[in-house]
């Protein structure tokens, strides 16, 4: 803990990122406590106070049906972070395991895994996610599925490349020589040496997942109303720019803060852990 604080103090940008991420996470976790109008996260209509500019009652103003934007942003963070956690929790283990196998076992296994990975990588990520969402019903679960499907190949390729470098290292040969099994060599010897790069990429990716998910819902393919989502909030407000600027500027800033925060942390981690991604 002391060491972490020391590192943060020496890297002001990382510290800045950590503060931003902490703010975002707190906002999401404590949404019920902080939000002045928790009920506005759902389908509430208040036509008396619709489209109000920011004021002391409505910190970020209200949307077109009179819901408090600040409250909705807090709840939208919840969805974004949940998506980020789930997507990475599924995509990273899958991608890492495949990358380890492809890199270490070589032979037909390597060709199969890496060629499939190449196919996925050759399609622009957003397009792939859009086409999956276009076919499926746009729900939260399908959104996770679509983003996960485009996310694992990046980890496969990252880990594959590291493993190719590590497997000629002496310690891998030494493990084989004392009779370690392939599983042991892959997961207990090589994997720990890939962790710095994986952790760094995960932190960077957390921001990108939020961005992609927001892009999808900006296009109407993500989380559906009335569930609050940063991307759809920006999209709804975009039609009323520049007069009702608060409708899209605040959700947009919210995306910026989250993505920026995770990126700063990721960059800091890359320096601290000495990983190259």
């Amino acid at each position, binding site marked *: 803990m002391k060491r972490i604080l020391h590192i943060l103090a020496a890297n002001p940008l990382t510290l800045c990122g950590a503060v931003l991420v902490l703010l975002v996470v707190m906002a999401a976790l404590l949404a019920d406590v902080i939000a002045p109008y928790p009920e506005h996260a759902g389908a509430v209509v208040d036509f008396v106070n619709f489209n109000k500019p920011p004021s002391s009652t409505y910190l970020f103003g209200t949307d077109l049906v009179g819901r408090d934007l600040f409250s909705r942003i807090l709840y939208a963070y919840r969805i974004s972070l949940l998506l980020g956690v789930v997507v990475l929790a599924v995509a990273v283990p899958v991608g890492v395991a495949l990358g380890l196998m492809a890199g270490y076992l070589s032979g037909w296994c390597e060709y199969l895994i890496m060629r499939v990975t190449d196919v996925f990588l050759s399609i622009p990520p957003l397009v792939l996610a859009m086409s999956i969402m276009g076919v499926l019903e746009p729900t939260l679960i399908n959104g996770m599925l679509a983003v996960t499907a485009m996310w694992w190949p990046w980890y496969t390729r990252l880990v594959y490349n590291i493993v190719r470098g590590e497997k000629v290292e*002496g*310690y891998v040969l030494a493990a084989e020589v004392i*009779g*370690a099994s392939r599983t042991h060599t892959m997961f207990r010897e090589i994997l720990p040496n890939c962790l710095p790069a994986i952790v760094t990429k995960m932190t960077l990716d957390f921001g990108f997942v939020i961005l992609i998910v927001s892009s999808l819902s900006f296009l109407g393919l993500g989380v559906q109303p009335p569930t609050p989502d940063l991307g759809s909030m920006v999209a709804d407000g975009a039609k009323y720019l520049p007069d009702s600027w608060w409708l899209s500027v605040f959700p947009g800033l919210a995306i910026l803060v989250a993505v920026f925060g995770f990126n700063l942390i990721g960059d800091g981690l890359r320096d601290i852990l000495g990983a190259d991604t």
Partner: protein
Amino acid sequence: MSLLDIQDLRLSFNLWSGPVNVLHGISLRIGKGERVALVGESGSGKSVTARIVLGLLQEMRGAQISGRIGFDGTDLASLAPRDRRDLRGREMSMIFQDPTSSLNPVFRIGRQFHEVLRRGQPSIDAAAAREIAKKVLAEVSIEQPDRVLDNYAFQLSGGMNQRVMIAMALANRPKLLLADEPGTALDVTVQAQTLRLMHQLVSDHGTAVLFISHNLGVVREFADRTYVIYRGRIVESGPTAMVFENPAHAYTRALMAAQPRLTGGGLPEIADRDGAFSDPAFHHGVQA
């Protein structure tokens, strides 16, 4: 009876361009507790011989291996890959050129010792492993085994790592130790020191050693018998003293002449290839 008995070992790799012959019929024997050196220039087939003995190349596609390798009475070729793997780390182990890269950089030495000892005794717990580790580290003259066990490989010097590797390789009391140019990555004094330690340990434990090297000075001090290998063939073999004092084969003589001398005078002119290098093998005295 000999511990390791290799007869007419041939190895070729099938490449797209056709087969490449690497070993053309190697025969060598190591008795129990005997120290045998295999010397030769780079690319002569020293290291692949060791890998075949360990059973690592057999699992590689494209490697064609023929010949008999008897280890402690059993034919290695008759063993399933799984049984061959069981021999590694228990009955035979290996020491490499570069000790520092042979240790996993992300784990403490103590934990790696535990893994090694688990090969011998699968149920051993961390505390018991640590006790044994301390004992074997003391055997290789490491004075603060506790500190070393809590360190990572990069925190130790090359010489320390080498000693740790020797201790690990001998921890499960293997019958055969394959030393592939041990300590070539270290400086000469450290190398001499660790080799002396290794020499003493293998004599104490009665471990047989296949010592692979191109360093003739080291071989002369370390090995009971010496095999000289050239381009995949054994060209000369016999007790170390006889091979060194009375080299009979043209290649061995060239190899001896290529040794740098303390008295200076530069390196002699020796032809890279010479028809005489392909002469039939010469064996000194009786084969052990």
